Every structure is written in C-alpha cells, then in structure tokens.
C-alpha cells in the first residue's frame, strides 16, 4: 500500500478512499487504473444514452446476432437433411460443402461484426496512458539478486570442492547420452544395406535370370507394342515391381525414329554403352537425377525429356544428358534386349546410380 501512496504523493494527488459512498463506480475504476499507473485522460461516450443513434446501433447489433442464430440453424438443418453422399454427376451433394461453408461463415461473421459494432460504436472512446516501467528502476535489486545467485554457488561450495562438480559432470554426460541413445539407435539405418542405393528391381534374379520389362498392369512387352516415336513406362517384372516398393525402378522405354536411333546409338558407343539399345529402342530411368521426380514429359520432336518438378531437360539421343535446368547428371540407361519368347528383358541392372545425387555416389 505504501508504494501507492508514495506514487500518489509524487503526482500530488490525494489518496482516494474507495469506500467513500460519494464516489461513482467510474471514480473507483479510475482510482484502480491509477493504482496500476494508468491515467484515463479521455473518456467520451460515442452515443447519447436514449438517443435515436443509440437505438439504431442497438437494433443493428441485435440484428447481426439474430442473423447468426438464423444461419447457425440453417447450418444444422443443412448438415442433417441435405443429401451429402457423393454421387456421380452434378447432384445436390456437390452443394453440401459450399452450403455448410456459407452458413457457418455468415453465422460467425454475424457474431464477429456484431461484437465489433458493439465495441467500436456503442462503447465510450477512451485514451489511457500507462507507464511502461521497462527500464531498470532499481539497480540495487539487480545487485541483490546477483549476489544471491553467487551466494548459491558459495553455498554449494563447488569452488572449494571441485571434485564434486567434475564428478557430477562426468556422471551426467553419459546420462545425457543414455537419453539420446534409444532415439538415435532406434532410428538410425545403414543406407547401404543390400547395396540398395545402387540396385533396382532390374537386378537379375539369383539364378542369373534376366528380369522382364512389364507394364503397369503386369503384362510383358513385345517390341511391336510400342509404335515408332512412342514411349511406355515400364517396370521390373518381379513381385511388387510396379508398386512404390521399387520406387527407383520405373523406366521409360522409347521407340526412336530411325535417324534419332542412329544418333542415339552413336552417342551410346561414345560412352561405351554400345550394346544398351535393342534395335531402335532405348530405356532410361524415369527417376530424375536432380530431386527424384518422375521425368515424364517426353517431347517427340526434339527427343527431350522434361522433368515437370524443376524443369531439368534431358536429351534422349545424347545418352539423356542434361541440357537445361538444375540436373547435373544424365539419366541412367537400362541395357535391354529381347528374350527367346520375344519379350523385352533387362540385360543387367542399371550400371549407374538411380535418382538424386548424394555424397558417396561413385
């Protein structure tokens, strides 16, 4: 209490007795504010009580609240009775979510604007000034707290008994490691288990059997299935070959036109991949070497393959070399041939690493 009276004395004000029956309620409020270092310097009714303006504003606010009730009820009615199950075509069910949104939104806006109007128009305008007290107003307190904290260290006597501190740290360090160990130990995975980052589903089976190229529906592919200039996404003909279990295996099989095929073959030979093509067919990994999106937009006229994620472009007739965009590495090529039954097979797995680059990629 003494601080209040001191403060009031500083400001040259008489302390107010809040039990004084002559004080109005606002006087008490004002006194309370003063005790929190707040001066209400301006307080002005916005509407004259009983005036036409007040009645009009009251009606407006009331109307908004009533509209809220109306829309909320409409929301409930729609929620319960409107047909909501999805049906093919342009049925009424397509309006279910919009109607819920409109009724809920308007109901909430009704409360919102009602409260806002109430607060902004009907309540008195005021200007109050509060002291911030954000400077250090008592350096002594700082000193005392500082000394108290230093004294804590004295009491513990770590300086005199350094062994305690050292042994505590030495004891706690492994405890910290114990807390982290299960988390790290449980999560950590060897990335090169089964050489998984360097192999795909096209790796020959254990008996050395070559893996067939199959379509999405699992059927194997004959050369005649892909027309000249056409392309087809193919997968390894193994269990789960089409699924995300082999997310590194999707491959694009392209039937090049004669002149493009010649260019491509020449490029293959330059790279020492002379036998990777079969006839005029080439197969490249579909997984972009930049960030792993499927590079799937093939432009027939220019033989460019575009990755739609970051617009890397690969020139198919030049070993799928990146010619624009952020990719730094050509798409790996799958060596293919046709088996005795006339279906495409992979002669071996990819000879380069599939997908986004990483530190230890050779």
């Amino acid at each position, binding site marked *: 209490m003494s601080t209040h009276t001191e403060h009031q004395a500083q400001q040259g004000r008489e302390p107010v007795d809040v039990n004084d029956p002559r004080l109005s309620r606002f006087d008490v409020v004002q006194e*309370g*504010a003063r005790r929190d270092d*707040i001066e209400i310097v*301006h307080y*002005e009714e916005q509407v004259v009580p009983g005036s036409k303006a007040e009645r009009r504003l009251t009606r407006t606010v009331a109307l908004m609240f009533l509209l809220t009730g109306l829309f909320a009820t409409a929301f409930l009615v729609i929620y319960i009775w409107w047909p909501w*199950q*999805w049906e*093919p075509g342009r049925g009424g069910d397509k309006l*279910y*979510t*919009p*109607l*819920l*949104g*409109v009724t*809920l*939104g*308007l109901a909430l*806006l009704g*409360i*919102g604007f*009602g*409260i*806002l109007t*109430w*607060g*902004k128009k009907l*309540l008195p305008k*005021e*200007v*109050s*000034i*509060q*002291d*911030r007290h*954000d*400077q250090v107003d008592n350096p002594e307190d700082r000193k005392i707290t500082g000394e108290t904290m230093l004294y804590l260290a004295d009491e513990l006597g770590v300086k005199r008994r350094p062994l305690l501190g050292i042994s505590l740290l030495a004891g706690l360090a492994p405890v910290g490691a114990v807390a982290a160990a299960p988390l790290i130990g449980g999560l950590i*995975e060897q990335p*090169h288990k089964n050489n998984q980052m360097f192999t795909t589903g096209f790796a020959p089976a254990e008996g050395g059997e070559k893996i067939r190229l199959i379509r999405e529906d699992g059927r194997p592919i004959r050369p005649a299935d892909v027309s000249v200039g056409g392309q087809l996404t193919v*997968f390894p003909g193994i269990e789960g070959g089409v699924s*995300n279990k082999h*997310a590194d295996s999707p491959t694009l099989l392209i039937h090049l036109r004669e002149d493009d095929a010649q260019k491509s073959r020449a490029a293959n030979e330059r790279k020492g991949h002379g036998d990777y093509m079969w006839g005029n067919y080439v197969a490249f990994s579909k997984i972009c070497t*930049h*960030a792993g*999106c*499927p590079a799937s937009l093939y432009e027939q006229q220019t033989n460019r393959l575009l990755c*739609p*994620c*970051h617009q890397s472009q690969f020139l198919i007739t030049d070993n799928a070399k990146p010619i624009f*965009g*952020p*990719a*730094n590495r050509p798409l790996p090529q799958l060596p293919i041939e046709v088996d005795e039954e006339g279906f495409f097979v992979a002669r071996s797995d990819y000879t380069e690493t599939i*997908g*986004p*680059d*990483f*530190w*230890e990629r*050779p």
Partner: protein
Amino acid sequence: MKRRKFDAAALPAKTAGAVDDRFQVATPLRKLLNKVFPDHWSFLLGEIALFSFVILLLTGVFLTFFYEPAMTEVTYDGSYAPLRGTPMSAAYASSLDISFDVRGGLIMRQMHHWSALLFMAAIVVHMLRVFFTGAFRKPRETNWIIGSLLFWVGFLAGFTGYSLPDDGLSGTGLRIASGIILSIPVIGSWVSSSIFAGEFPGTIIISRFFIAHVLLIPGLLVALISVHLGLVFKQKHTQWPGPGRTNSNVVGERMFPRYALKQGGFFMVVFGVVALMGGLFQINPIWYFGPYEAWVVSAASQPDWYVMFLDGSTRLMPAWEIHIPIGNGYVIPPLFWPTVVLPGILVGLSTMYPFLEARRLKDYKHHNLLQRPRDVPARTAVGAMAVAFYVVLTLSGGNDVIADKFHISLNAMTWAGRVGLLVIPPLAYYVTYRLCLGLQQHDREVLAHGVETGIIKRLPDGRFVEVHQPLTSADGHDGHAPALDYVGWVVPKKMNRLGALGPAIRGFFYPIEKPAEAPVSPGHPPVEPRPEREEISSGESRR
C-alpha cells in the same frame, strides 16, 4: 426452523469473495483488466496468425478422429466411384473417406488447409510490419527471433501436414524432400535412410510425419506462441509516435472491455472468413491426384505457397556439381545449395538482423516508439531487397505455369529468374532508398511551407504562385509561420486533413450528419474534447 432465503443477486459477489479468499486474485485481475494496449490496424496482423492457429487446432483435432496414419495397402471401397477398386495406402483411403464419407469432413479438411495457408501468410505479413517499423529493436530482439522461428516451425508443420494424405502430389513433394536430405554432404544418405527407415518411400514415413504433425510440431508451436505472447504482454506493445506518446508510456485503451471486444469480434471474423473459404473454395482436391505412385506426376505441380520460394530457388540453380576426387570420388549435388544452404543463410540472417542493425548504428537503447519506414531508408531498402528476392523466387516456383499461360519459353523464364534474382533486389534497394528520401523531403517541405491549397494566386508582377496553408498560426520573426519539427508521424498533406473541407456525407440510405472531426493524426482519438463547432449561419440571429 427458519428457512434461509436464497439471494441470487448476492451470488456473484459471494463467489468472487470466496475465490479471492483462497487465491488472492483481485489485484492481478485488476491489473489485467486495466492493461493498456495501443491500437493501430497494423497491430492486428499477428492476431490473424494466432486466430488461424486456433482454427488449425480445432479442425485438426477433428481430422485426427478419422485419419489413419498407415501406409498399409488397401483397396478403396468408399463412395467416390472413380477410384473404387484402386489399391492405395490406408492414409490416402482415410483422407478420401474424410472428404466423402464423413459428414462435414470435407469442409473441415478445407478449412484446415486454408487456415494453414492463412497462418503462414499472416506470419509473413506480421513479420514485415515488425521489420519495417523497427519494432524488433531492443528490448524485443528475443521476440523477433521467436517470430522467425515460428515461420520455420510453421513451414515444417505445413510440409508434414501436406504429406499426410499420401496423394500423388504430396508423395512427389516427399520424394523431393528425400532428394534434398540425400544432397547433404557426408551424412545425407544416413539421415535419409534413418528418416524413411530405408530406401524411399519405405512403409513408415507417414506414421512418423503424423506424430510430428499432430504432437511434436504443434507442441513446439504452442510453446513458442505462448512465449511470444507472454513477452508482448510483459514488454508491452510498441506504439506509433504522436501527441502524448513517449518512449516510456503506452497510450491506448484498457484491455477491457473495448479492446477485448474488438479482439473477440476480430477472431470471429477471421473464423468466419476461413469457414467461407473452406466451404466455397476448393483446395487440394486429393481425389483428382490419385494415390502416390513413384512414376506418376503431372505438369504444374506446385507446392503450397510458402514452399514455393524454395521450389523457385531449386529451379533457378544452375547444374553446378562439386566433385571431390578422393577414392571413388565424392559429390556435392547442386540441389544442396538452394534447399539446405539458402534456408540456413535466411534463418541466420533474419534472426541476427536486430543485432546486426544495432551494431551498425551503435544503438543499444530501448525503443518503444515505432519508426515510419521512410525515416530509416537503409532498413526499409534492405527489407525491400529481401522482399524482391523472395518474390523472384516465389514466382520462379511457378515459372512453368507462367510460361504456359503467357506463352513464354520455359527456358526464358528460368533465365529471367536467374538474372532477376541478381538484378532486381539491388534495384529494389536503390529505388526504395530514393523513395524514402523523397517522402522525407516532402514531409519536411510541408512542415516548412504548409499544405498545397490548389489556389493559384497572381502576383502584381504577373507571376503565378500556389497558396500554401501553413500548419501553424504562430508568427515567426519575419512574419512567416515558423517551420515545424518533424516528430516521426503523419504530416497532413491535404486541406481536408486540416478540417478545411467537411467530410464526405456518410450513411447508406440517409445521410448521417456529424460535425467534422477535429484535426488530429489518424489513428488517434483526440486527447482533449473536441471544441464545439459554431453553426454556420447568415450572421443574424434567428431569435
């Protein structure tokens, strides 16, 4: 036996007394009710983020009741006919069920998504407000750092949430994320295989993202937001300069009732707008994208807007690979720079900015008064530069769509982005700096010579001059009005700001006649009561 009469009117006072006896809350409660908040429209931007977060929590809890965070393969058998019989993950199937087989599930999902976008947008706009007005200066550096972290934690929340439906689009995003993690030198493949439990995509990532999205990240957000608000409360809000406003006071309204009512109303308005958007504007229609399959993607796949700047930086990065010829050879792929290094630099720069500026200006004082952006040209220009950088990256994140819609070559768009990223920010710096100086100069000019009236006067020697209305009536020594000092607040530049013209007649159906406001700066109720205006009359009394 006497029946004790139950006095309902005395109940609140009695209860309050009983509570206060036990917890002594009267004084702290009074302090809370009385706390003064300064008011300005720009102070409400952070609130939008807060309110969106509340909506996110509400709608998010609803979604968890129906979502199944598992990658087990199931065959879809819900009411959406086009996908019936398709094998997909349980996560995607349950997201479809939320959209089609849970009553009101779709609007909840869409409100959740829209409020997430709004949350991030409000954070960014609020951050710009704080930056350009210098509200981050001492003693508020901590809150600035927390705010910047909130953006990145919100970013993570958004990304993990975006991945949960496991649809075609989000799976592609996830694959890019795995590529980004792989690109980190030395530890990349280890981190990636630890997060995905093996090779991408594995079978557990959705479950891990789920717990991060519904527990770890929201927990962190709640903690950061609480500290953020607590500090605003403790340190008190900044205010614009103006009459009676000093560095050591707060001029505004007490928290209750008017300020709190306005806040509550504003929350309901934000909530209502989100509900309208969730109902009317379709967002992330996952049923069109199909389940995630590693070999399917569509053109124009864009991430949510707050990720687009990183997508843009990735697109613009030239294919510069760093090869280290030791042993089998090691690689730092180009993907590493725009997606790991750039965000790292951005976090560092943005969190350290308050200290960098204080160091450069050798300014270690407390600042509770805001600055108009024009008064600190260097900071404003740096901010404009950062915004330009961000906008170029964000636009580049959609450069394929721009190229498609406007029939521009895609490669030209990429090159424009690359060049623009280097040229436009410095240009923005220069232009903003000059604009600030120009605005400052005009303020000083008006303070010295007065407001342009639009009245042209012909002088006896035939010259034409415009009449200026001085802002003060006090006479200087030579008969001219003395130049006024600039005090860091709006200078009136139009005659009706000085009360020379009546305000436009208000009212929709019938005019609301009101006396003109006394000349004050906008955003300020007058400190003194308005002087009564005299009625304009013919001069002779009616009576």
